[in-house]
C-alpha cells in the first residue's frame, strides 16, 4: 500500500524469501505481529480505541473514536434505521507520502472499505436499534479513525481498532414519550436521560467482523504484510469474517495481478481459520484493555497523572 522505495535486489530478496516460506522479519507467512489495544482513550467520545500492530516504534497505529449524534429524519432516508458514517484519515506524520494532499486517495479507499464492512446488515450491528423514533429521529454513529503510524497491514489494524471502539461504545439512554393528536396518531418526542452511568452498550457490537488481509507476493501470499512486503505486493485481498465464521466482505486491492479461483478458495478457508484465532486474540486483548481502564479509575490519586500510559 505504501510506496516505499526498494531496490530490485531488496525486492527480489523479499519475494524469494516469501516464496520459500521465510519473511524478512522472521515470521512465517501466516504469522501475525504483536498487537496492543486500549479502549476509552477519548473521554468526549461515546467509544474509542487505539490499536497498534507491531512493536513500539515500528508498527501501524490507529486511533478510532465513535461519536453518536441524533439526526432528524428526512424523506428518502430509511424509516426505521440508524446509520453509520465512517471517516478515515491518515495523519500526515504517519508516512511521507501522506504529506500535503497525498493521503486523500488512501483516505477515500479506507473510508469506503470500512463503510462496506460496517454499514449494512453484514456488520452484525442492529441498525434498527439505532432508530429513536421512526421517521423522526435516529442515531448516527460517526466513526472517525485516525491513522497515526503506518508500517503495513493498515486495514486489519483499522478494523481491529474500530471493532474495539464500537464494542466500548455506549449510548445515553433515551426515553420516548408519545402524545395522540386529533386523528389518534401518536406524536412522539424523546428526551435523553442525564445520567452519565445510565448508558446502553451498542447492540450487536460483538457480532462485528474481523478482517484478514492477504498480500500476494510472488507465488505465495502472506497475512499481516509489513511495510517492505507491501511494497512488493502484487495483489491484496481483504476478507472480513464474522464471529459466526461467515464471510461478510471481500475487497480486492493492488493493481498488478488477480487471484486465480483455486487460490481464492484456499484464501477464504485460510481467512476463516485465521479469523477464528484473531477473534480469540481480540477478545483477550479487549478484556485486558477493559481491565486496564477500570483499574486506572479505581486508584484515587491526587498527584498529577496527566499522561495516561499507553
Amino acid at each position, binding site marked *: 500500500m505504501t510506496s516505499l522505495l526498494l531496490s530490485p535486489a531488496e525486492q527480489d530478496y523479499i519475494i524469494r524469501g516469501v516464496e520459500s516460506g521465510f519473511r524478512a522479519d522472521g515470521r512465517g507467512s501466516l504469522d501475525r505481529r504483536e498487537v496492543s489495544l486500549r479502549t476509552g482513550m477519548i*473521554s468526549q467520545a461515546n467509544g474509542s480505541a487505539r490499536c497498534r500492530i507491531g512493536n513500539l516504534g515500528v508498527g501501524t497505529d490507529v486511533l478510532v473514536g465513535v461519536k*453518536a449524534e*441524533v439526526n432528524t429524519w428526512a424523506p428518502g432516508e430509511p424509516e426505521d434505521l440508524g446509520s453509520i458514517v465512517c471517516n478515515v484519515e491518515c495523519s500526515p506524520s504517519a508516512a511521507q507520502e501522506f504529506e500535503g494532499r497525498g493521503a486523500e486517495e488512501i483516505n477515500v479507499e479506507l473510508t469506503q472499505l470500512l463503510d462496506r464492512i460496517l454499514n449494512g446488515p453484514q456488520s452484525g450491528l442492529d441498525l434498527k436499534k439505532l432508530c429513536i423514533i421512526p421517521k423522526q429521529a435516529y442515531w448516527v454513529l460517526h466513526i472517525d479513525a485516525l491513522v497515526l503510524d503506518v508500517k503495513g497491514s493498515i486495514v486489519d489494524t483499522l478494523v481491529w481498532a474500530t471493532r474495539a471502539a464500537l464494542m466500548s461504545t455506549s449510548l445515553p439512554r433515551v426515553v420516548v*414519550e408519545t402524545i395522540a393528536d386529533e386523528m389518534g396518531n401518536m406524536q412522539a*418526542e424523546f*428526551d*435523553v*436521560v442525564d445520567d452519565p452511568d445510565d448508558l446502553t452498550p451498542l447492540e450487536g457490537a460483538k457480532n462485528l467482523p474481523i478482517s484478514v488481509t492477504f498480500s500476494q507476493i510472488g507465488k505465495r501470499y502472506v497475512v499481516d504484510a509489513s511495510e517492505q512486503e507491501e511494497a512488493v505486493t502484487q495483489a491484496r485481498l481483504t476478507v472480513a469474517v464474522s464471529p459466526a465464521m461467515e464471510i461478510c466482505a471481500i475487497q480486492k486491492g493492488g493493481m498488478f495481478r488477480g487471484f486465480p479461483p483455486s487460490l481464492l478458495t484456499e484464501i477464504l478457508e485460510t481467512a476463516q481459520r485465521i479469523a477464528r484465532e484473531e477473534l480469540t486474540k481480540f477478545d483477550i486483548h479487549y478484556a485486558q484493555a477493559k481491565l486496564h481502564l477500570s483499574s486506572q479509575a479505581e486508584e*484515587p490519586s491526587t498527584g498529577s497523572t496527566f499522561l495516561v500510559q499507553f
Partner: protein
Amino acid sequence: MLRNKSFVKRTRKGNIVRTVKEHYLRDDIACGYESCKHPVCLSARSEAEEQGKTLVGDVHPAAPLSASPRNSTQWGPHYLVPDTNAFVNQIDILERPIINNVVVLSTVLDELRGLSMVVYNRVRAIVRDHERRWFVFSNEHHRETFVDRAADESPNDRNDRAIRIAVKWLGKHLEGSNIRPVMVTNDEDNLRKAIADGVTACRMEECLGVYTECPELLDMMGSVNITDRSGTDPNWEGYAEYLSPVQIQAGIKASILVQGTLQIAPYNYLEGSIFAAFPDGKERRVLVIGRKDMNRAIQGDRIAVQILPRSQWRKAPSAALVDEDEDAVPDAKAEAEATQAAPSVPDTDKTNEGRARKRARVAGEKLANGGSAATETAEVKEDGEGHEELGEFVKPADIEDDSQDGEPTGRVVGVIRRNWRSYCAFLDPNFAHKGAKASSAPVSVSVLAMDRRIPKIKIRTRQVDVLSGQRFVVAIDSWPKESRYPHGHFVRALGDAGDKATETEVLLLEHDVPFQPFTKNVRADLPPEGDKWLLDVDRDQVTSGKRRDLRHIDICSIDPPGCTDIDDALHAFRLPNGNFQVGVHIADVTNFVKPNTAMDKEAAHRSTTVYLVDRRIDMLPELLGTNLCSLMSNVDRLAFSCIWELDQDATIVNVTFHKSVIHSKASLTYEEAQNRIDDPSLNDSITNNIRDLNMLAKKLRKRRIDAGALTLSSPEVRFRLENDSQDPVDVEMKALKETNALVEEFMLLANTSVAAKIYEYFPDSAMLRRHPEPPAQNFDNLQHALKPLDIQLETGSSLALAQSLDRAVLASDPYFNNLLRILTTRCMMQAQYFCSGSCTPEEFRHYGLATGIYTHFTSPIRRYADVMVHRLLHASIDRDAVYGSELTDKIKMNEQCDVLNHRHRMAQQASRSSVELYTNLFFKGKTVEETGYVTQILQNGFGVLIPSYGIEGVVYTAAKDAATPSVLEYDQDSHALVSPDKKSEIRLFRRVRVILQVDDKPVSANVSSMRRKLSLRLIEPMIVGLSIEVEELNALRAAKKTKAANADDDGKIVELVAKHPEQIQTI
C-alpha cells in the same frame, strides 16, 4: 486529578452532547470555623490575610463560622448544614437574618443550581453577606469528603451520602471545639441513615424549634402537607394530570398544542388567555376558561394549551366576577345556567369538559342564537360536517381568522415554566371567623392574594388571630392535582390592612418595584465630594474643549411646582440671520454613572423612577437625582446639550450635540412661565426667550399634528394631602397649561433628533422607542358603540384617526370628545423600547407621535433608557469616547429593553394603584353622588368612568347569589346591556349618575373590604332591581348632609407635588 465527571445533555437544537470535566481533589480545604487550630485551616486563614482579605466587621471572610454559634440544649453550640431540599423549600426561612452560622456544602450548591437558579442566587447572596456567617464548604473537592457514586446508586442517593459524609467529617474535624454540625433534612430515609451513621441530624421543624423567640418561623415552613377541605368534597374529582415535558415538546412540534404565557383577566380570575403563535405564523388569542381548564396554571406561567372543539368556543363577551367569596358560586351558577337554558343540549361533550367550560359554551350558544340552544347545536353539527364533530379537539393549523365559531378556547395540558413569585395576601375572612382561637396548633387556612388573578392559596399557620386583618407575603410551594388550590407558606407580615404604609408596601411588592434603600456599594460610586461637588474646568474637560462652556447663555428650566429632579433646561435666542438658536440641555447623568459600576447596575435594574402619590422611588441616589444632576438655577451643572438652528417656521436648519456646562438663570414652574408670557410688562431676556420658544413650539406642534400625531387623553388626578398625616383631603383633575406643551414639544424634538443621530452611528444597537400601529379589530367595540351616534373612527392611519377624533364632537355633551380620546387610548398598543438591530426600519415608527424614529433622551435622572441613549450619543459625537460591549451587544441590549419595558409598565401600574389607594382613602366613609360615563360593557356589569375624580369602577348587574338572574341581559348586536322589557339599556358612552362608596366596615369583615374596593351603585337611569332605591338614596343623602355639617375643616393642606411623567409617555 481524580475523576472525569461526565454528563450528557440535549442541546436546544436537539443534539445530545456529552461533556466531560476534570475533577481535582485537594487536601488543603479549610473548614470555615474562625478559630480552628487545624494546620490546614490556620494556613488558609493566614493566606487569606496575606491576600488582603481583612476582617469584615468581626467576621473573617475566609472562615466566617463563629466560635460561639447558637446554643441549644439538644445539640449545644452548633452549625446548621441544610440539605438541598431544605434550601429549595425553606429558603424564605433561611433568608431570615436570625439564621446564621450555616455551612453550605458544594454538593448542595451544585444541586441547587440545577434545581432553581432563583434559590441558588438567593443563597449566594446570603453567603456574600459576611455578617450572616454562612460558609461554603467545598466538600466535593475535599479529598476526605469526596465520594464516588456506587454501582447502583442513584445520583440523588449519592449526593445524600456525600452530604452525610461531609457532616460527619466536619463533626470529627470540629471535635476539639465543642461545636457540632447538625444536618437539616426532611428526607426520612436520609435522616435515618444519618442517625445510624452517627451523624447529628434533625428535621427542619426541630431545628426551628430552637429559635423560640421567632415562633413564626414554623409558619414559614414550605411544602408541608396541608389537609384540604376539597379532599373530602365528593364533587371534586381533581385536576387532570399534566403531560410530560417531552410530550409537550412533541405536541408543540407537531402543532397539536400551542404555547403562551397565561394572562388572567383582571376582572375575572376564572378567565385566562394566551397569545400563541399558530402554524400559519399569526398570533391569536386563545381563551382558557374555568379552573378545570386552567389546570393549576397561574398568572404568568408559560403553558401548553390544547384547543378545544369549536362547539366550545366562546362567542359572548367577558363576564366580570363579582367576588370570590365562595368558590362554589361561579361553578354552581354555571351549572344552574346550563340546566335552565339548555335542557336539550346533548350530553356528548360531558365526558371531557368541566362545568366552567360548559357555562361559556352555553352562554355563547344562547347569545349567538337568541337563546335557542337546540337549534344552535344543530347548526354546529351542520357546518361541522365530516371532519369535525362535537367534542373533537381542533388542530391549531385548522384555525382561520374571521371564523364564525367565536374565539378559540383551550385547556392547559402542561406547564412549561412556572412563574411563581411571592404574593401579598390576606386571610380569607370566611376562615378567620371560623378559625380555632387561642391555639398554638397549626391550622390550614386559605389566603387571598392582593393580585386578583391569583387563586386562593392554602397555608398552615399558628397565628390565625394575628394575621386576620393583616397583609402578609406568602409563597406558593406546590399545587398537587388533588387539591383545588395551591399550597404555600407564610413568608412575612407586612402590617395592618388599610394602613397607608402597609398598603404602599403591598403595591410596591405587587408591582415588583425595587424599593430598598441604595446599598453601600452603590453609594460608594457617588462622587466623593458629595454635595460639595463643584465644577472643575480641568477635570470636567472644559479647558480641553471636550465640554462646551455655555454658562454665558440665558438658560432656564420649566417644571411642575416643587420639582426637585430637574433634568431638562432650555434656551433660545435670535441669530443675526433671523433664525433662532434653540437649545435643550439635559442633565449629564452619564458623567456620574459610569457603565458597569454598582450604581449603573442598580439603575439598570430599577430602570425607572416610580412616582407614587406620596413618595418617589428613585432610580438614582438622591445626591445625583436632586442635586448634582438636577439643573437647578444659579449653579454650574454639567449637561448634554442638543442645539438646533431653527428658521422662522421652526424647520431645523442644523443640529449639533455637545457635552456642556450650563448655568441656569431661572427655574420656573409652568405657571410662572405662563405668567411671564402673558405679562406684557416683562421684557427681560428670559421672558423673551420663553416667548420665542412658545412661538416655535406652537409651529412645531402644528406640524406634528398635521403629520398625524395623536392627542389622546387619560384621566390624571392630583391629590391634596393633609400636611401631617398625608391623608388625602381633595382630588382634582390635573390641568394642563400652554407651557406644559412648550416643554413637551422641545423634548420631542430633542428625542427625535437624538434618535436619528444614534441610529446613524449604531445601526444595529441603538436604543429606540417605537409605538406599533394598533390592529383595526382593537377598535371594534368602540366603533360599534359609536355607530348609533353616527360617528365613524378612521383607523387607517394616525392622521386619519386624529382627524376623525377631532370631528367626533357632540354638542350635547362637551365631555364626550375627551371620553372618546380616553377610550381610544385604551385601544392603542404599548409603546416599547427596542434595539434597532432587532426590528426592520419600517417597524421603528412611533404611531402616536407620527414620527419615523424616536427615543428617550430627555430624562436620564428617572429613566435608564435615557442613560443608555446618552452613552450612545456621546459615542456618536466623540471619536475618542471609550465604550465597551454595553453599547454594541445586540443581545444584551435586547435583554435590557425587556427589563426596561417591564419596569416601565410596572411603574405605571404602581402609580395608578397608588392613585387608586388614595382615592379609596379619600372616599373612605364618604358617600358621593357623581356623573359618570359607561366605558366598558361586561356580561354582568358595566364600567363607569367618573371624570371629576378620574376613577373607574364596575356596576354589577347580576347579584352575587346565583338565585336572582341578571337584571340586564347582554345584547350582542348593539353591544349593550338591555333590560328584558327592552325599555332601558346601558350602552357605551351613556351618561349615568352613580353613588360612590367605600366600605368603612372593619377591614376583616369581608373580602371586598379587605380589597378596599370602591363600590358604585347606579342612580340614573332608574332600572328596577339594579338602581339604588329612592328611599335608600334619600337616607344616604340625609346622612351625608349631617356628616358634612359635623366635619371640621382644618386648613393645613399642602398640594402634593409629584412630577408625573409627561402625558405623552403614557402612549
